[in-house]
Each structure stands twice: as C-alpha cells, then as structure tokens.
C-alpha cells in the first residue's frame, strides 16, 4: 500500500506537470521576449500581436507581464526577457547593474508622476508660493512636517523631492512613509497621511475620487522619461532583431501619437481585458493628453542632445546620489557611460524606413 501511495503521488505530480499549457510558439521565427507593465508603455507589442502586425515581422513575440519595475529588473538579471519598457528608476538600476541599454523613450511621464491631496487640504489655498514654479500648491510651511504616502526610490519620489526642492525644503522636512501604490491609496482613502504620491493610471482614480493635484514632475520641472531598453547580451548578439522589434514598438507609439482617438479602444482593452484594471474611457483619453510621445526622429534628437535625455537622466541620478541610494563611484561610472543611452538602433530604424520609402 505504501508503494501504491508513493506511485500515485508521483503520477499526480506528473499529471499536473503535463497539464501545463505549452507555449504557443508555432513558427520557427526567433522569439523576442517582451516585458511590460500595466502601463501605456506596455501596450505596444500586446496590441501588435492582436492587430496582426507581427505576421510580417521576422520575429515572434513572447509577452511577459510584470506588476512593477522591481521584479522586471530581477527577471532581466535572470535572462528572462530581451526587450521592454520600464520607468526611469528601474531602467537606471538595470543599466548600472546589468548593462541594460536604453534605446528609446517610451513617453514623457513628467505629468503623470504626480502628488495629490484631499480637497480639504490647506495646501490648496496657495498656488505658486515660489513664482518660478507656478503649478505647485502650498507654501513651504504648509508642506513642512506633512505625512506623505507613496513608494520611495521611484519616479514618484523623484517628483516629490523635486517639488520639495522647489519650495526650499528637503525630504527631511517631511515624513515619507514607504507604501506600494495600491496600499497607499487604500490608506489615504481611509484618512491616513496628508499627501500621496501616485502615477498614472492610479492618478486618474485619484482624480475620480475628487482628490486634488498639488504638484507633478512637470510642475517641479523634473522631466521623467520612460525608457525603452534591451538586455545587453541580446543587443550584442541580435542587433538586427532589436531594430525589427523597435520597428513594431514604434509603430504602436506612432499609432497613439497620430491617432489618439483611435487608440483609446486598444489601450482600454489592454488595461481592462489583459491587465485586469477597471479604467473608464475618459481616464484612458487622459493618457494621451498628459503623456508626450516621441516619433522616430524626435527620439533620435532627444537621445543625442546632451541637454535633453542625458540631462533628464542626470537629474534622476543626482536625486539617487543625494538620497544615498547609489554611491559616487556608481554615479560616475553611469555618467561616464553616457547613462547607457544607445541611439544606434533608433538610427538604424530611421535609415531602414527612409530606404523603404
């Protein structure tokens, strides 16, 4: 009986293993593993697959979904994906530690990394206490000592620090409690904290609840660029595939840039049907209002102009250095490598498109 027990256990185990669905990888095209988050910059390849754009592409896509940047970076280190899009902070960490190449800008997220208060907050009484920053609400005295909820070491935190700087304050003047977005919203809703740091699409939910925006990356003149990137080893081994992949990705970006009205439906479907969020149509419409998108030529210009993408990244790196999150040595190495920006793939794509025309 003992033996039959053991063998039945093994059989059950095997049964479970065999019941697992096999990956649908029919064609013998090389596979590019794409990573994405429940965010506008994750939608491109998902939509490409739905819309049939990949039929003529020389690669097959495998789509990997991550709730946030930390697991996405860990999976990058584990060789789990090749190309994808992440926020600035994970992109920077991945570049510093794993040589991840930044090959494009998914969107300008400065406006969608924002800071909110409840409608009865005293911060709302004053606007533009520092005339150089007219869109920041509240006086330095209003901000001082406030309890702020939100994820630390994130682009949202960067926007917050920039806001505090603009008012002549620093992180030490306020009480920052580290919480993930979902938890922070639950807590803020229950009356905890005075200020909350969010980003889209959660900030649209905040707006729907009647909370008021008191600052954002844009208001604090901190430019936050979402990164498109590629794993270093993959870029070295298959540079052409990266360009092919970028071609499809940029097709998605250009669709959203040129036809926002027609892109609402696909993005809504990505958020609600695939990611399991529950966004409304007008929230998704705001995505296109707040997020600036770059076409291929704008991308190249921004990447090559030292006053733009490199400067934006330097801003984030300064913030990380000042917070003691990275060492001076890491900072110098990162800056010396030009922030791991590599416009060559985008340029190749531009050449290829020009030749095709």
């Amino acid at each position, binding site marked *: 009986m003992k033996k039959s027990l053991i063998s039945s256990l093994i059989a059950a185990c095997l049964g479970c293993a065999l019941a697992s669905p096999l990956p649908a990888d029919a064609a013998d095209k090389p596979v590019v593993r794409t990573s994405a988050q429940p965010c506008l910059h994750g939608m491109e390849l998902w939509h490409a697959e739905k819309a049939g754009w990949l039929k003529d592409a020389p690669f097959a896509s495998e789509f990997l979904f991550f709730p946030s940047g930390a697991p996405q970076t860990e999976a990058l280190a584990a060789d789990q994906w090749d190309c994808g899009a992440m926020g600035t902070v994970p992109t920077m960490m991945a570049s510093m530690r794993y040589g991840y190449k930044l090959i494009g800008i998914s969107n300008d997220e400065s406006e969608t990394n924002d800071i909110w208060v409840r409608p009865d907050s005293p911060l709302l009484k004053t606007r533009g206490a520092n005339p150089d920053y007219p869109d920041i609400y509240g006086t330095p005295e209003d901000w001082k000592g406030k309890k702020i909820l939100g994820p630390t070491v994130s682009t949202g935190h960067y926007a917050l620090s920039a806001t505090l700087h603009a008012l002549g304050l620093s992180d030490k003047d306020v009480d920052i409690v580290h919480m993930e977005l979902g938890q922070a919203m639950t*807590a803020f809703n229950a009356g905890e904290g005075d200020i909350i740091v969010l980003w889209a699409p959660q900030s649209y939910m905040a707006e729907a609840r009647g909370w008021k925006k008191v600052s954002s990356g844009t208001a604090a003149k901190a430019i936050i660029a979402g990164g498109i990137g590629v794993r270093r080893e993959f870029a070295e081994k298959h540079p052409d595939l990266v360009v092919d992949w970028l071609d499809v990705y940029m097709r998605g970006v250009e669709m959203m840039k040129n036809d926002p009205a027609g892109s609402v439906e696909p993005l809504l479907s990505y958020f609600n049907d695939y990611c399991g969020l529950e966004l409304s149509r007008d929230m998704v419409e705001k995505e296109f209002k707040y997020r600036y998108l770059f076409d291929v030529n704008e991308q190249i210009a921004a990447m090559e102009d030292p006053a733009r993408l490199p400067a934006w990244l330097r801003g984030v790196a300064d913030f990380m250095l000042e917070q003691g999150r990275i060492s001076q040595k890491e900072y110098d190495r990162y800056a010396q490598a030009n922030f791991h920006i590599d416009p060559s793939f985008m340029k190749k794509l531009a050449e290829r498109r020009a030749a095709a025309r």
Partner: protein
Amino acid sequence: MRDPIGSERAAASEALSLEIEKANYFATAARENWISFVSFALFLIFWELICRFEIVGPYQLVPPSEVVTLFIDKFSNANPDGALLYQHAAASLGLALAGFLAAVVIGVPLGLFMGWYPAVNMTARPLFDAIRPIPPIAWIPIAILWLGIGTPAKAFIIFLAAFVPCVINSYTGIRLTNPVLIRVARIYGASNWETFVKIGIPSAIPMIFTGMKLSLNAAWTTLVAAELLAASMGLGYLIQLGRRLARPDIIIVGMLTIGFLGALMSWLLTRIEARFASSRRLT
C-alpha cells in the same frame, strides 16, 4: 472505537518519556557538534566557489564573502537604505514581539476556554477554522482600513499568524489534562471553574509553551509581510529596498539576518523551555 480519554492519557505519558529520551539524546549529540561546523563551512565554501567560478551567473547570486563584507559595512553605513542594520533589526524585533504578545494574551486564554468549555469551542471553532487558512498578507488592506498604517496595523498582521499556534496548542494542552485529576478535584467539591484554573491550566502549561514557541516563529516569519504594509525601517523594508535598487547583496543580507535572528530566538526559547521543563519535573 478506542476510548478517547484513555488515548489522551497514553499520549501524555508517552510525551513525558520522550522528553527524558530527548534529554539523553542531546547530551550524546553535543559531542558531534563539530560535524555541524564542518558542514556549515563546506556550505559556505561551496557557495563561494559556485560564484567565483561563475557556475551561476554573477547576477543570480552574490558570494558569501561579499555578503559578509556588506553585513559588516551595514553596521556603520546607513546608505543606501537609510538605516543601520541593527536599527532595521530592532524595528523588526519590536514589531514581531508586539504581534506575538498580542497573540499570547488573546490566543492562549481562547484556546484554553475552547478546550475546557464545549460551548465556547462550538462557537469559536468555526470562525477560527474559517479565518485560519487566510494568509496574513491578504489582511493588509483590511488592516489599513481598520487600524491605519502605524504599528497597530502591522502588529495585527503578525498577530493573525502568531495567534493560530497559541490557540491550537493551548486547546490541545488542556484537552490532555489527566481525567483522574479532574475527577479527584470534582470529588473534593471543586467547581468547574476551580478545576479549570487549578488542574486544567497547570497541566496544559508544557503544551502552551510549545505553542508560544511556534507562535514566536510564526510572528517572526510574518514580519516581511507586515512590513509590506508600510515601513521606513525594518528587515522586510531592507529587502524591499534591495529589490528596488537591484542589489541582490542587500536582499541576501536581509534574508540571512532574518534567518540568523530567527534561529537565535528558537535556540533561546528551547533553552528557556528546557530549564522550565526540568524544574517542573523536579517538583
């Protein structure tokens, strides 16, 4: 069907003889402790070697030498996570102890009452059984809504995990009370409450102690979940920040600190329990 009371008695006497056997065992086993040291050293060397010779990728695992370096460094360097290692450990210990104490104060009496009074058992048991399988992390949003984001909410998460072994073990402990003693007390005219306090509870103490040990373990292992709620210090927070900064070395230092402190606490409690049990046997 076997007489349930008889089997309980047998189990109790069996437990006592095992206790003695265990003491003998530990005495002889102490002489072989060098094997443990050698094995642990070999484990570390193996770990170091697979990293040095890149059998696992450099991103996948950090060699123990680097972990130790960082560990020492973390006692004097607050960067990059904003606090020293012992500050993180102290914050976590405080939190775990708060949850643990709440669990003992509420869980032990509840378990004892459930074991003694069938009415309490029938009322509380279904709820207890229903709540038990829900993982503590799932309570995070509820804890935030009810208790906010401070220590009470985090201690509540820990309490939920720590409270289960307290209840189960006190319940079992009191059910194992020698029925002869109960009958004797009754014959001498003790009321049910007196019997419960004077006979039931003292005889359940060893089991309660085991329960508290398990409960402290549970409290300590729920720490990371509790610090997921909100934190600006603590070992769970250290791990979270290590993830955000893509620093596997910080993550491993956090994990191992939790591991060593946990092992240390179990060891201490076993020591206290051994002393406690031997003094009981003498009386």
